[in-house]
């Protein structure tokens, strides 16, 4: 047990305590608050593990947007009926089982040498026929058109996944919209904005939102060559939009506006047209020509950022009048 592991041990203990609280806190609101705090601790851990851009995205999405979603839903739901620990014997025995399983995992991880092998850089143990995925990525970076391996994986080597992932976002928004007509309008009519926004919150929103937009823009611009990219930038912009919407500084957007519908769809549309163009005029579905790869990836990223930001903010703060079909 070395001294430099101390922050990690403290963070891990905090994380486990918060996970426990988020599951078994006495009231639902405590559970939600602890879940938001859990998201922030996860973000800290990811920053320690060499993923600062992912940490920002997790803080914005996992803690911020999910927290807003949960609190909004809790306002509409009736109070919790059953207590959680009505079967103490089952509860304790399954907890014992959980501890034993975790201990087995721990011993396996601690005794498995293959997890520790690759400690010192990629080129240390390259053999001709057993190249691992990171080595293959590093070898193909020259043809990818961008300088950051995560962006290259997302938008070039595994572009299929990213395209389908944009479609998943569209699908989720469609699903949310479908569920509005069945909802009792009288109960739903509660405005999303806080009626009398606290002056402090208002001042903070005016200060935070431009900073978030700036960070999002930087992450997008930086994404080609360093830590960052469309998803992280989209998450930042969505967080800014949600803050402004909740404080009432941003007017509600109307689904009938062509501009909004275009913004939701344009990421997937641009991505699909690039895919079709490469299929018809190039070497195949989503195989970019090497000299065009950089420009194509940046174009897709810009439009995908817009779509992700608008879709996420609609998913979180969209109102029935805005979203119903």
């Amino acid at each position, binding site marked *: 047990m070395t001294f430099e592991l101390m922050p990690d041990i403290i963070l891990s203990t905090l994380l486990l305590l918060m996970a426990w609280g988020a599951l078994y806190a006495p009231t639902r609101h405590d559970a939600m608050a602890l879940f938001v705090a859990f998201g922030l601790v*996860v973000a800290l851990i990811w920053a320690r*593990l060499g993923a600062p851009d992912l940490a920002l995205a997790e803080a914005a999405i996992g803690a911020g947007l999910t927290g807003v979603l949960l609190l909004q839903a809790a306002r509409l739901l009736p109070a919790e009926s059953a207590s959680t620990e009505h079967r103490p014997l089952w509860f304790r025995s399954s907890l014992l089982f959980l501890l034993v399983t975790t201990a087995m995992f721990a011993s396996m991880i601690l005794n498995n040498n293959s997890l520790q092998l690759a400690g010192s850089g990629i080129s240390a143990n390259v053999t001709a026929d057993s190249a691992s995925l990171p080595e293959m990525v590093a070898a193909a970076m020259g043809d990818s058109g961008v300088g950051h391996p995560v962006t290259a994986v997302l938008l070039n080597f595994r572009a299929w996944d990213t395209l389908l992932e944009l479609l998943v976002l569209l699908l989720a928004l469609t699903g949310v919209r479908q569920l509005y007509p069945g909802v009792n309008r009288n109960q739903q009519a509660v405005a999303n904005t806080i009626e009398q926004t606290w002056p402090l919150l208002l001042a903070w929103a005016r200060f935070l939102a431009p900073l978030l937009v700036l960070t999002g823009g930087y992450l997008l611009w930086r994404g080609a060559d360093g830590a960052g990219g469309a998803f992280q930038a989209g998450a930042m912009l969505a967080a800014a939009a949600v803050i402004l919407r909740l404080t009432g500084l941003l007017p509600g957007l109307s689904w009938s506006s062509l501009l909004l519908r275009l913004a939701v769809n344009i990421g997937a549309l641009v991505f699909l047209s690039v895919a079709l163009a490469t299929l018809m005029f190039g070497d195949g579905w989503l195989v970019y020509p090497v000299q065009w790869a950089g420009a194509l990836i940046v174009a897709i990223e810009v439009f995908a950022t817009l779509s992700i930001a608008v879709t996420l903010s609609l998913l979180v703060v969209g109102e029935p009048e805005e979203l119903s079909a």
Partner: protein
Amino acid sequence: MSAMQLYTIVGAAIFLLALHGLLMTTDSIRRLIAVNLMGAGTFLIMIALAARISPPDPVLHALVVTGLVVAISATALALRLITSAAIAQHSQDSENKGDGDLSEDVKP
């Protein structure tokens, strides 16, 4: 023990703890939180495994980035389903009671 190993164990522990919560709680919001915690445990394991080499494994990072966005869209859809179901249940209950609404208001 390295930080990577510690966080892999913690990720597995959180996944199992959340699975326990998913099975033992009855409130739908708590169950949704449990599913989200299971996702967070998985992401934590992936990020810890990515940190075995330096620079970190880009494939795992890319998977986590997409996973985060898919997780929030699934959460938004699930919450909308939960609230719609609860509101439909509520209006059905008040319809079934018919003109008994007044007496219900008096009772509590």
